[in-house]
């Protein structure tokens, strides 16, 4: 059978189209990050990386990077510990299935709605402060306080996304052979030793997936933060993504916005790359 000369080129067209669709916006953004492009002030002009210099010399970029990392590390650590812990309890308990349905509810809410719900409950005269006051405990400014705003958005993230970790961890825990745990118990291992030496190593591939998904999501977090605080008070919750939005959409400064996003991309790329390598090693071993 004779092949058409054009056929291979035709067959590669869809792949090429996808490549262009991904690369064109990405490369445009990368180019703009090296320009003084303001949406309402003419075409982009190359400015020799001034945006990157300004970001870090003004301290704003460093601060946003710190908020981005604090947010991502805190949410991933808290959600992973809580999620795995709850999953173990659910797998043991009699009513695990019932609670699993209940506990997944936050995940079914759109994050913006869930955040707005918490925003109402965490106002100065809101439900949470009322309950704290009723219990004789001190109240808080939550989203409105420069010292408490970041913690508040982290808690909302934990409330929404811990169920995601629970679901994956439960699946992972079920793949740990019960015989191994029984054997280690017969050998005299207590519950903690059992968890550290048997369950945790076998749960590692699932943990990598959890950290990969939640890590990337948290690094790029926008909706929870913007809905609750718009990056404030002052810049207490301004991460790289929110800063890019404020620069690009509010101030129309696309050069600066793209510089922030390129830094965010590099960070995300680095984290994703490291975790995928670990996952690959897990698969090979």
């Amino acid at each position, binding site marked *: 059978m004779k092949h058409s000369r054009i056929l291979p080129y035709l067959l590669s067209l869809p792949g090429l189209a996808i490549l262009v669709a991904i690369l064109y*916006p990405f490369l445009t*953004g990368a180019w703009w990050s090296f320009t003084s492009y303001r949406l309402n002030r003419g075409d982009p002009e190359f400015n020799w990386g001034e945006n990157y210099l300004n970001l870090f010399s003004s301290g704003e970029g460093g601060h946003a990077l710190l908020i981005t990392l604090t947010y991502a590390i805190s949410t991933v650590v808290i959600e992973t510990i809580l999620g795995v812990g709850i999953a173990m309890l659910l797998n043991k308990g009699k009513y695990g299935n019932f609670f699993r349905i209940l506990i997944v509810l936050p995940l079914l809410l759109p994050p913006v709605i869930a955040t707005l719900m918490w925003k109402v409950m965490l106002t100065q005269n809101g439900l949470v402060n009322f309950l704290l006051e009723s219990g004789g405990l001190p109240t808080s400014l939550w989203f409105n306080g420069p010292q408490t705003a970041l913690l508040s958005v982290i808690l909302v993230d934990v409330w929404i996304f811990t169920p995601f970790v629970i679901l994956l961890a439960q699946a992972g825990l079920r793949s740990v052979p019960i015989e191994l745990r029984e054997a280690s118990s017969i050998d005299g291992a207590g519950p903690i030793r059992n968890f550290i030496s048997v369950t945790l190593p076998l749960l590692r591939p699932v943990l990598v997936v959890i950290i990969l998904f939640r890590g990337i999501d948290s690094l790029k977090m926008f909706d929870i933060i913007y809905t609750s605080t*718009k990056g404030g008070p002052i810049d207490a919750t301004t991460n790289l993504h929110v800063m890019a939005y404020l620069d690009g959409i509010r101030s129309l400064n696309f050069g600066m916005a793209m510089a922030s996003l390129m830094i965010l991309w590099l960070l995300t790329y680095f984290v994703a790359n490291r975790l995928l390598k670990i996952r690959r090693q897990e698969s090979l071993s």
Partner: protein
Amino acid sequence: MRKNSRMNGAAKSFSTAIAGLAVVGLVTGCATADTADTPTGASDGDTTKSESFDWKAYEGQEINLLLNQHPLADTLAANVGDFEALTGITVNIESLAESDYMVKLTTELQSGGGSYDMFMTASPMNYQYAAPGWMEDLQPWVDDPTQTAADWDFEDFYPALISASRWDTTDFGGAGQGGLWSIPANEEGYALFYRQDILDAYGIEVPNTHDELIAAAAKLDGVTFEGKEISGFVARGDKTYPTLNPFSTFGGAYGVQDIVDGKAAVNSPEGVKAVEKWVELMQYAPAAASTYTWYEAMQDFIAGNAAFYIDADHMAPGFEADDSPIQGKVGYALPPEGPEGRSSGLWVWSFGMNEASQHKGATWQLIQWATSKDILTNAIGLGNMNPTRMSVAQSDEMVAATSTWGNYNAVWQEILAEHAAWPHSPSGTWTEVGDIWATAIQSAVLGQQTAKEALDEAAVKIDAAIK
């Protein structure tokens, strides 16, 4: 090895996808900004232009509006059926919450697509949109007797509001000159609201100066009135430029300017003093007020939680509504006096036209109809205050609508006539300048920095932004 390389490829594709997604959110909304060269006045609509003005000149055309959720938009939506009957033009209205509205309007205008023919705008938005050529200069339309109804009466608008709608697109200059970018439809100045019943109960006179206001707020802060703990004061304090509107009653009264000779002047001695006084007053507001937008501050006052409040005078219909707990209890006063006298910012919601509109004639008909005497008079009953036409402001309808609101009708007119002006330097970067300034004020109010530290830092950022 083969498996490994395939996985490497997958990892690379995944990483590339992440990279694309990281920027695509902002990139997709932005085509190239090459809309500035569209010839003014030329559009499909003009091909049917008649020799004399005719409301039916653009019959059969369809125009799209993007509006901010506001009593002005409600008024337009309530009456637009009459316009459609009068002209035979079909009008489609889309209303969005303010922050979503600003984002969508900006992306639509810069795309040059002309999807929306007409929109609501105000001075800072005109500064962002007029310089790159995204807005139609309306002066030629006003001057054209074949396009403008003889009884529309352009001279009836308050001159200060027309002046606030003009700009010659020169950065940090040219305000009140050059192109007419919008037609005013709603005016707000900034007044001092007070709870007359609380002041009477504690024997406090209506404050006349900043110091008197601070002293009165201090005295009333924390008192219990009708079973409720009252805060001495409330105002918006969030870190965006609209916070500068109520602050203008302090800033202007100290003679503060944002930019002088192309350099930031927010940290001048008078700038620092004005913020220090504002911070002093805000100590008697609820702790969360430093992040309040106008809506939250207004709700706080309507709920009866505060004795004094400075904000847009046209919030009065909300205070005096039948379901308002403070109906009939509010007093209206001029902004308090400072070293340089009294001062008020000015916000003018207006109608503007997309330069890329393909239906400019039909759109201009809607703009002039929506800002006509009849419609603005009708709007009073729908809560669209304050009128932008002198004849409507002095009409019997306005007097009747505000007859039970104490001295409201006299106060807002005096603010507009004597004190209100857009107090900032026009430029395409003004909204960024305003955000930086408002963030510095928030930082000082929250006690994170002194007023001087916050404003010095803001001045450096403003200089970088306007470079």
